């Protein structure tokens, strides 16, 4: 049972993270290029999503939406919820990266005649992405941990499985221990990989 929960946690996190990166990227691009109307929509979305708990977002999706005839399966709800939440975090990360590109870099770009698109393509995006890697790493870990909240909509991921087993067999210590180990197995190696990546990216383009 734990193996299944483990697999499901990884799988849902994976889709959620990929989706969040895509949504985040789209939002930050809409904001960067100030696409009329859409960039305001993106800003509202980011604020709503960042300032409300995933748990309530999920309750809404899972329990309240069907009252109006909109119904998704539990896993789909989980993924939508995670992407809804993660998208805004990723968007903030990318936007932070883009804004972090120094003014003097933008000016040297302009000085050699780059237009707005070229400036974005050759200067802002490559440098901004590297700058946003630390934020992205933090977000990835954050999102994986947030999948533990899926337990409230009956998705049998790690936490749900552990709580279920505790409810049936009453061996809390053992199951909780396995649960912590489960998250450690996913997150510790990931955290190490991301730290290394972060270092490489930083030295790669900005080391002096």
């Amino acid at each position, binding site marked *: 049972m734990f193996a299944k929960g483990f697999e499901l946690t990884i799988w849902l996190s994976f889709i959620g993270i990929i989706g969040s990166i895509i949504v985040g990227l789209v939002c930050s691009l809409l904001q960067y290029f100030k696409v009329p109307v859409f960039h305001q929509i993106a800003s509202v979305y980011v604020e709503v999503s960042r300032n409300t708990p995933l748990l309530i977002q999920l309750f809404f999706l899972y329990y309240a939406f069907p009252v109006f005839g909109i119904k998704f399966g539990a896993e789909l709800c989980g993924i939508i919820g995670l992407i809804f939440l993660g998208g805004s975090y990723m968007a903030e990360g990318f936007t932070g990266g883009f804004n972090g590109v*120094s003014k*003097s*870099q933008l*000016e*040297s*770009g*302009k*000085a*050699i*005649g*780059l*237009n*707005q698109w*070229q400036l974005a393509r*050759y*200067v802002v995006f*490559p*440098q901004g992405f*590297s700058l946003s890697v630390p934020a992205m790493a933090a977000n990835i870990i954050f999102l994986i941990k947030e999948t533990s909240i899926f337990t409230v909509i009956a998705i049998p991921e790690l936490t749900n499985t552990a709580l279920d087993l505790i409810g049936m067999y009453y061996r809390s210590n053992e199951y909780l221990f396995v649960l912590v180990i489960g998250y450690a197995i996913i997150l510790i190696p990931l955290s190490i990989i991301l730290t290394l990546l972060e270092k490489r990216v930083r030295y790669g*383009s*900005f*080391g*002096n």
Partner: protein
Amino acid sequence: MAEKVLQVAHLEKSYRKKHVLHDINFSVEQGEVVTLLGPSGSGKSTLIRCLNGLEPYQKGTITFEGKKIVPTEKNWQKIRQKIGMVFQSYDLFPNLTVMDNILLGPTKVQKQDRTTARSEAETLLKSVDLADYANVYPRELSGGQKQRVAIVRALALHPDFMLFDEVTASLDPEMVRGVLTIIENLANQENMTMIVVTHEMNFAKQIADRVLFLQDGRILEQTPSEKFFTNPQTDRAKVFLDSMDF
């Protein structure tokens, strides 16, 4: 009379509430080298940045090669290919190699053929003694080397006009000379039209045809170089020159 490449008339510029340029009027002729001198905060950088469209200005006109510039970002973008600019902070793109830094403008903006552009870039790099550094990233260069690449990057677009803003100010003293020599060559041998902001008085003396002396955002005097350094027209300029050597 030689052709006027650049004319500035009644230029006024404020940052929010701070008025930093007052009624600036001057022009630059083909092949002329103008140096902009003045105390810190007098508006030299601001003026030179206005000439490249990096700062919006509130009043006045800039005429480049006979055409009055309508100051939209689009227009400026075209003009910037003809007016090269090099800054104090050698801002090479850290994510690109030296060669890619140089080729970005010619190939992406001017759509030049990549092989021709490259061979030309190599010639330019050789002329600044950096032939071996084409495939290196900026972080591996010294400050003086970076600044020379920045100059090459601007020249690769074949500008008609160059703007230099204190390009040696953040270099180690021993690195300064190499960079200045290159600008000196451009001025004296290639006859490039240019405006140079500098604090190196000896250098200014050697390359300038004319000196514009700025103080508190106003042009206090416009004097031919020989005359300015021996006999400045205003007392303020005299004090300024005195303070420049201990």
